[in-house]
């Protein structure tokens, strides 16, 4: 008898699951996202926008004629996985569009750059149009930083605090030319 009831219950559950309808809709990519309190799209966008706008006001950027910057790693010192490359890519895009900074190839893109140079030096390419060796331009400034988080959790409350710190270093003399921080706090309450 109980086996029969169990079988019926299992069948009912399977039917209910089958009937549950998934709905997919497009959303606002720039809307406020609060699905969970882990690092999200709104955090990424706010950090990138705030940092890029702040850097554009730095005296070294205003006074220099299109300074050349290379982007180094933003170290993830949080307890969760964050693609920090996405943060620096967004900052780079915003600055590039703003037209105040030029970017030199960074460490991550160096291998592809040298491979392409070598490829163009091969016999397959016309010598007069091929990119020459020894013409790459070095960066005057390097952009680096780190992101940290402090997570506090009690029974029904989880509080997450993120802080992104970016620094712009002068490659020639080692001086720190600009630095700024962006802080974000998110709190989730259950129930």
């Amino acid at each position, binding site marked *: 008898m109980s086996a029969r009831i169990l079988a019926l219950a299992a069948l009912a559950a399977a039917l209910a699951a089958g009937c549950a309808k998934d709905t997919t809709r497009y959303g606002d990519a*720039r*809307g*406020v996202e609060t699905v969970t309190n882990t690092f999200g799209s709104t955090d990424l*966008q706010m950090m990138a*926008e705030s940092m*890029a706008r702040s850097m554009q*006001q730095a005296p070294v950027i205003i006074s220099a004629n299109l300074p050349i910057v290379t982007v180094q790693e933003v170290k993830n010192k949080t307890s969760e996985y964050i693609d920090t490359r996405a943060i620096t890519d967004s900052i780079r895009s915003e600055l590039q*569009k703003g037209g105040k900074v030029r970017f030199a190839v960074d460490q991550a893109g160096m291998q592809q750059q040298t491979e392409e140079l070598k490829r163009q030096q091969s016999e397959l390419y016309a010598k007069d149009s091929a990119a020459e060796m020894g013409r790459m331009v070095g960066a005057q400034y390097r952009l680096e930083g780190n992101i940290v988080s402090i997570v506090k959790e009690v029974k029904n409350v989880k509080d997450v605090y993120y802080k992104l710190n970016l620094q712009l270093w002068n490659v020639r003399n080692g001086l720190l030319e600009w630095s700024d921080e962006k802080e974000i706090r998110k709190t989730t309450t259950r129930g």
Partner: protein
Amino acid sequence: MKMKWLVTAAALAALAGCATKKGFEQPGFAFGCPIGDARVSSMDDLVKAKTVVEGRRSTVVANEMRCTKAGDLIKVDTNLNNDSKSVKRMAYKFRWIDQQGMRAWEEESWKPVLLYDNSNLVISGISPTNKAVDFRLILRSDE
């Protein structure tokens, strides 16, 4: 001699009176903010001209706005006032406009902010490009 002092004091008072009204503005600007041909004679007029409230109405209002130049970029400071006894959550973004009245930049992301009860919060914005010559502050309740 006493008369000379009185005249000087009167001149200073007159100057101060002029300065508190709108400052020494360039034509087409009010409180440092670009206004084009719009008639702006007070802070309220400026805030009304530059602020757009979307979505649900809230007790949070922009009540002061000032602009300045950061290099060739526009920097905007806006005071938001929460005149209620509860904490309010808002989101804001700036819309940057070019010389032709078109968007000078893609739509910014919404930035959530929290305002404590009966309090003020200053939000700042900087234009992303020198092509931006005007702006609108978009406010939205995030409750």
